[in-house]
């Protein structure tokens, strides 16, 4: 993985975390503008960063989120629970994508659909709330769309494409079979060449192309002025490829193409040379009569006869072939067949729009991938006059554009185009109630057709608009609208570049400012840690050297100097060690920050109301400790939510407030971190626990009778214990608290529980601040030295042999009024040698605390205590019980550190 991507991933995770956090905070304070701005900045930067890589799915979702946040920030959309849910879901999705990137460095294209869904859902929120500001977009797209539907893109634009009959027939067959036939129109951004794209190559990759076309929309008046490096082509393709394949292929240019599913009827289109004289009326009557009686065989017969008589490349022949084809393929679609037969009289294309209502109610589905049209409500009624006028103008302007286009293009299909433009204009004028103009339009259209030039229509339009001031005003307005839109678009184009560079500048500004944070790989810190460990060991060798200088070589001065030097090195090394420790320190907020979201999700699922209070989030502890803590804590919090806190109605009945309170508090107590999880739920009933434990065979009958309440509550930590009647997805699998305890003990922590029925439960974890430096006491046994962690040592005493009693073959002694079992270390280590007492026949006894009980370990002698860097046993030795690790001593020897907990 390249380092840029690595950095992106690590940063992105931080951002996701931040976004989640901010959303949680917003939930409590939905009006805070500051939070909103920060949230937007997070989403914005994350999106910008993701744009540096090839993850279109991620960028798309983030982009939609950004737009939504932008709207919220500007107050166009109000913050709501659903909005937060949607955003959180989007961020989860992004997180999932990131996991995938981390594992495979790519995103599988199967995520494209969910990404689009999410983006759509986000944008939906945007539009649901935002009808006003998006109006321009809506009107424009709506105008275009209604035009597409009403005037039927299929009958205006596709016929212009002049499909050869065979291809039409083939696609018709396809569409009838239910295979989708898509019409793709791809208009690359004009600067696409500069992005290293080759739109033509992309379009050549479209599979199963049945028909294609490329249109030049030149942006210059003459060839000499042409800017060859700005894309001026529009690519059109009819393809039968599955939509997923198309999505995948075009996933980098989702905003630049339009995809329309073409209904089969569109392909029913006779083509060929126009007949010079009308088709014999008698034949038409015969055919219609046969058609009406339903005698298809006879009808096909006379049509075939007719076909033999006429030239095959005539328009009417083509039409007849279509009739036959339709009778074979869609015998029930009689309206279309009849319309075709009837159009033999006029030799004009039948007007499918009249049939449309019955024929293709749903078939024509427009699926533009263009984001703005996606967000636009499909058929928002133009309720005000102004809106109507604007719509009118947009359509008229579009028609003008088409006319200008045909003026430059000319060619065979301009007649069809003129007619369609004519009918669009007529429709528009009808809608705004200026029916008196219609005759003159039709006249202009006729002229235009006769001259085969759009000029008469254009002229008429100009004249009509200048003669009607109210329309001109609106027209001017619409011009500005279009201009605005163009300007907006330009801004959007520029944004991509700005995102990349602008962000760098932001970063630079941030780094030159107060915020100087370095991201360092943990391995490097660990390496530094082990180096300082070696340094401490090397430093510790100096006193030995000093002693040697004095005793062996007899140079006292040198010895003193070495000691002085040692003091300096010692100070520096200790400071260094401290600093490195601090680098490894993490605030507990690192794990706390996930709780708000978790508590929110779980409490919602359980239908409970919970107020979560976090305290002492800035308390710090070693990274390893913090990380080891995260799973047990999640477990505990879940338990509290599931078992501890009651449903609101139960709580109210018990005289408590409906909202349960969950307090998670971290604090530092000398060299340990204390974490408490306190709820005010129903508490733990010791009787229930006792009996459960008895039922499960965890305790025997005698214990059941004897056990006190606190001990009974502690039974929840026993392996295999579970009180839940039903196993839910939250808890009840019986692997709860004992796992928590072992996880905590693994990092030298302890866990305890206090509970009062009806009042609540307090669970506390006590953990060392750091695992790196361990204070151990060195003891000697059987001429070997061992270390024992000081935090386990309660006291050291010398027990005279006479004070040792043997109870049931176990040695014990009475110390300060309590019986303490004594275990010789040599026995524990199976050395088979008796412990050596001192001259006064006293045994050196180390009193250690194991699981809350005091145990005496008999050793041969005590030595000093030292700070060591404890290295856990690895490899084969890792499986060795009884030792928590090994350390190097100053003189270079290895000290094995015992783990009394496992030993006993």
């Amino acid at each position, binding site marked *: 993985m390249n380092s840029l991507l690595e950095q992106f991933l690590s940063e992105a995770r931080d951002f996701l975390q931040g976004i989640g956090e901010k959303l949680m905070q917003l939930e409590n304070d939905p009006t805070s503008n500051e939070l909103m701005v920060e949230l937007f900045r997070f989403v914005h930067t994350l999106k910008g960063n993701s744009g540096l890589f090839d993850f279109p799915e991620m960028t798309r979702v983030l982009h939609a989120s950004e737009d939504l946040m932008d709207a919220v920030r500007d107050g166009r959309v109000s913050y709501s629970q659903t909005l937060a849910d949607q955003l959180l879901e989007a961020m989860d999705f992004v997180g999932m994508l990131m996991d995938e990137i981390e594992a495979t460095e790519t995103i599988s294209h199967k995520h494209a659909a969910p990404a689009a869904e999410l983006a759509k859902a986000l944008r939906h929120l945007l539009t649901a709330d935002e009808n006003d500001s998006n109006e321009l977009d809506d009107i424009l797209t709506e105008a275009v769309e209604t035009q597409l539907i009403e005037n039927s893109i299929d009958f205006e634009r596709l016929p212009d494409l002049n499909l050869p009959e065979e291809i039409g027939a083939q696609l018709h067959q396809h569409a009838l079979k239910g295979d989708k036939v898509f019409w793709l129109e791809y208009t*690359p951004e004009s600067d696409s*060449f500069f992005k290293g794209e*080759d*739109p*033509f*190559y992309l*379009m*050549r990759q479209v599979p199963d192309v049945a*028909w*294609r*076309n*490329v*249109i*030049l929309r*030149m942006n210059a008046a003459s*060839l*000499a002025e*042409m800017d*060859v*490096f700005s*894309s*001026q*082509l529009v690519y059109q393709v009819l393809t039968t490829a599955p939509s997923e394949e198309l999505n995948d292929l075009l996933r980098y240019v989702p905003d630049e193409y339009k995809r329309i599913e073409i209904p089969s009827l569109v392909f029913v289109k006779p083509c060929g040379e126009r007949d010079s004289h009308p088709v014999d009326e008698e034949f038409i009557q015969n055919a219609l009569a046969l058609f009406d009686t339903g005698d298809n065989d006879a009808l096909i017969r006379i049509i075939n006869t007719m076909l033999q008589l006429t030239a095959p490349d005539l328009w009417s022949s083509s039409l007849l072939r279509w009739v036959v084809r339709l009778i074979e393929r869609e015998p029930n679609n009689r309206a279309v067949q009849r319309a075709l037969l009837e159009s033999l009289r006029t030799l004009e294309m039948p007007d499918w729009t009249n049939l449309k209502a019955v024929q293709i109610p749903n078939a024509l589905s427009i699926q533009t991938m263009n984001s703005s049209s996606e967000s636009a409500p499909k058929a928002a009624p133009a309720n005000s006059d102004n809106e109507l006028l604007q719509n009118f103008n947009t359509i008229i302007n579009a028609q003008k554009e088409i006319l200008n286009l045909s003026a430059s293009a000319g*060619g065979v299909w301009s007649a069809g185009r003129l007619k369609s433009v004519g009918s669009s204009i007529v429709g528009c004028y009808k809608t705004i109630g200026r029916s008196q103009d219609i005759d003159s339009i039709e006249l202009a259209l006729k002229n235009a057709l006769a001259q085969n030039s759009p000029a008469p229509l254009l002229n008429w339009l100009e004249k009509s608009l200048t003669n009607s001031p109210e329309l001109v005003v609106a027209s001017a307005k619409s011009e500005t609208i279009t201009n605005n839109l163009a300007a907006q678009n330009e801004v959007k184009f520029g944004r991509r570049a700005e995102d990349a560079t602008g962000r760098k500048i932001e970063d630079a500004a941030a780094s030159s400012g107060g915020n100087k944070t370095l991201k360092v790989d943990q391995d490097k810190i660990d390496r530094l840690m082990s180096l300082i460990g070696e340094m401490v060991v090397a430093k510790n060798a100096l006193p030995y050297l000093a002693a040697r200088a004095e005793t062996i070589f007899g140079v006292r001065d040198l010895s003193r100097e070495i000691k002085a030097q040692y003091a300096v090195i010692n100070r520096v090394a200790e400071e260094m060690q401290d600093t490195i420790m601090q680098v490894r320190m993490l605030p507990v907020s690192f794990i706390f920050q996930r709780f708000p979201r978790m508590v929110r999700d779980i409490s919602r699922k359980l239908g409970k109301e919970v107020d979560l209070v976090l305290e002492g989030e800035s308390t710090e502890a070693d990274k390893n400790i913090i990380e080891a803590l995260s799973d047990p804590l999640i477990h505990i919090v879940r338990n509290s939510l599931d078992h501890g806190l009651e449903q609101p109605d139960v709580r109210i009945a018990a005289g408590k407030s409906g909202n349960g309170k969950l307090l998670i508090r971290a604090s530092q107590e000398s060299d340990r971190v204390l974490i408490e999880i306190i709820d005010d739920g129903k508490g733990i009933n010791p009787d229930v626990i006792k009996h459960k434990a008895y039922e499960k065979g965890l305790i025997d009958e005698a214990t059941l009778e004897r056990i006190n309440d606190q001990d009974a509550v502690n039974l929840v930590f026993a392996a295999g214990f579970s009180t839940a009647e039903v196993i839910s997805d939250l808890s009840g699998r019986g692997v709860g608290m004992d796992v928590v305890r072992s996880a905590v003990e693994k990092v030298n922590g302890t866990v305890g529980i206090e509970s009062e029925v009806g009042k609540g439960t307090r669970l506390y974890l006590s953990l060392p601040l750091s695992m790196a430096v361990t204070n151990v006491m060195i003891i000697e046994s059987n001429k070997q030295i061992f270390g024992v962690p000081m935090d386990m040592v309660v006291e050291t005493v010398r027990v005279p042999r006479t004070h040792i009693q043997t109870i049931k073959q176990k040695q014990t002694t009475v110390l300060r009024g309590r019986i303490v079992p004594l275990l010789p270390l040599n026995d524990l280590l199976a050395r088979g040698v008796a412990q050596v007492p001192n001259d006064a026949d006293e045994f050196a006894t180390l009193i250690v605390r194991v699981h809350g009980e005091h145990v005496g370990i008999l050793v041969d002698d005590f030595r000093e205590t030292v700070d060591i860097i404890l290295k856990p046993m690895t490899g084969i030795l890792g499986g060795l019980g009884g030792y928590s690790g090994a350390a190097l001593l100053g003189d270079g020897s290895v000290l094995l550190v015992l783990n009394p907990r496992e030993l006993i």
Partner: protein
Amino acid sequence: MAIEFKKTTVVFTDFIGVEEAETLLEWLLKNPKGKVNLSDCTHIHASSLQVLMAAKPAITSMPKDEDLAIWLNAALTS
């Protein structure tokens, strides 16, 4: 060289990249009657394609590459 300018004809071979578009346009402006031989061409970058579409030079032979030929046919003859 993927693009070779002869006296009256320009010959395209293999892949025509984006950078050829400008020279192609210049040549076509200088030789308005210049012809284009595409027979050994396998792909034309969109930039050069639009030059061909705008200048509409005579094509002496279409590409042997069938797919490209179909596309160029659609682009240049409509």
